[in-house]
């Protein structure tokens, strides 16, 4: 049967019955596909971690400042129990630009007691603090508190992924992997400490602050390896609640397996 219908936009009544039927069918099918797309793309997302970033809530933390080698605040949480909180700057920056002002009050900050107001970031037992205003970094006690030294454990190899802790522990979801690589590169090149996140077969995670063999910060050399499954060999040291992994960049190997931290 020939289709005599001919729709002209400006001619009233030119939309024929067969055309109307076709259009209705098209709209229903398109709507069905749209709904199906919304359901599939939303339901089949990897599960997000229950990490937290207190963007709108400020918290005051008092502790002893140290650089081991990245800025941290050592806070006593119980008798003989301490937690080292990693300090970060606003946006994709490390803490140093926000400590410039307080540095004018003392030649060295290491061992001094500071009170800092900022936004907490926490996940899996680790805590970080974002400083947004250098006026909110106050020296409480200028006498120097003796800090514990890190203890050497042994040379070990780990498989995992270099992440930026700010995003991984709360600011972004997901804060790891290829989707997030550009952001992690920006953060670590901005001074956020690089961390190796590993996960064993029982899904128990360990985190290692990465330094060079002399224990100095290593930010720029590590940029090409961020967000990629890697195997790294280095000397493990423990500083209370943090592990430090001292590495030679030559020991860095990219691996083809999926990183366990994706699970």
């Amino acid at each position, binding site marked *: 049967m020939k289709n005599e219908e*001919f729709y002209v936009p400006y001619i009233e009544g030119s939309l024929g019955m067969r055309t109307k039927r076709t259009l209705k069918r098209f709209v229903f099918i398109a709507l069905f596909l*749209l709904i199906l*797309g*919304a359901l599939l*793309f*939303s*339901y*089949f997302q990897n599960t997000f971690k229950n990490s937290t970033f207190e963007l709108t809530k400020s918290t005051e933390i008092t502790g002893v400042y140290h650089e081991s080698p990245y800025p941290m605040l050592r806070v006593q949480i119980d008798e003989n129990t301490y937690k080292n909180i990693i300090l970060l700057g606003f946006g*994709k920056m490390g803490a140093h630009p926000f400590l410039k002002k307080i540095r004018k009050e003392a030649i060295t900050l290491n061992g001094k007691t500071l009170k800092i107001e900022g936004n907490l970031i926490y996940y899996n037992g680790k805590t970080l603090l974002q400083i947004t205003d250098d006026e909110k970094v106050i020296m409480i006690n200028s006498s120097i508190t003796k800090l514990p030294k890190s203890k050497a454990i042994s040379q070990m190899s780990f498989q995992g992924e270099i992440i930026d802790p700010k995003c991984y522990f709360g600011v972004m979801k997901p804060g790891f992997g290829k989707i997030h690589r550009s952001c992690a590169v920006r953060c670590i090149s901005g001074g956020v400490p690089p961390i190796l996140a590993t996960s064993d077969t029982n899904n128990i995670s360990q985190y290692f602050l990465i330094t060079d063999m002399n224990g100095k910060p290593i930010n720029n050399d590590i940029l090409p390896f961020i967000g990629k499954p890697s195997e790294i060999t280095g000397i493990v040291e423990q500083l209370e609640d943090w592990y430090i992994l001292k590495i030679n960049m030559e020991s860095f190997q990219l691996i083809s397996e999926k990183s366990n931290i994706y699970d």
Partner: protein
Amino acid sequence: MGLNYQFVLWNKHKKMYDKIIVLSMLLYLILFAVVTLVFNSETSIETLILRAFGSLAIVLLHIILVIGPLSRLNTNFLPILYNRRHLGVSMFITALIHGGFALIQFHALGNTNVFYSLFTSNLDYNSFTNFPFQVLGFFALLILFAMASTSHDFFLKNLSPTVWKRLHMLVYLAYALIIGHVFLGAFQQETSPFTIGFLSVGFIVVGSLHLISSFREAKIDKSIIDKDAQGWLKVCTIDEIDDDRAKIFTVQNERIAVFKYDGKLSAVHNVCKHQGGPLGEGKIIDGCITCPWHGYQYLPHNGQSPPPFTEKVATYELKLLENIIYINPKAFEEGTEVEPTQIQKT
């Protein structure tokens, strides 16, 4: 057809079309948000926005891309084609929210310019799986911006239909870039077979419909036409053309529409001056060839739009011998008057 430019020439159907677009997009975004918050409540609002708008944009792009071939295969789909640009602009806005938000989320507030960061934060340009997928999305967004910002008859006229059409054909490059963006980006980490399968089926449907409609048109282009001693081409018999309709023939790489109307025959170049619509699939209405895409009109005997409109198409000479139509392949200048060939009543 219009002489003056207005932002949108509203009519009843356009309003209905746009309502359906807006409500469907809202439905998608609400559904995406509700399902995510119910089943994966630890999401962040930023990720929710990025993923809802990004996935909506790609679903919309698939719907946009099937409209063209569906309209070529079945003219009942033409009213959707008529208003496709509104769907295109809506898709661009959706993609812009996704792209703009991603640029801020992943590159802003750092130690360098966001655009410099976009191109340099991942330098694995020589790797397939590690390729900086965000760059692909950025270039796709630039193309979509160029298309959306020129989606108006003002630009169509001022850029010239040929340039405008070429610019808008870049949608296929944008589609390829977006497919690369998703498969080398999100799908490297979000590996559900359901979402990858959904998009793969979409790609196959878009590709198949384009191939089927192209094969059908290629048949017209490849049909062999006999020549007579004077070089006129034998195209068909009178009975093969319905009244007030046309048949399309390809002569020397140009498509020509031969119309039968009021006991007469006329031939014009098949391509409408507005958006390149196939005039030969049109109809004679009020004595004028009427383009099936947007209703632009031309007088069959001279290829000119009726006054006060000024569009013109090339015309061709026909002759009729024993019910067989012959065409002179040499085109006249656009808008040249050609005496219609009279059909003798038997």
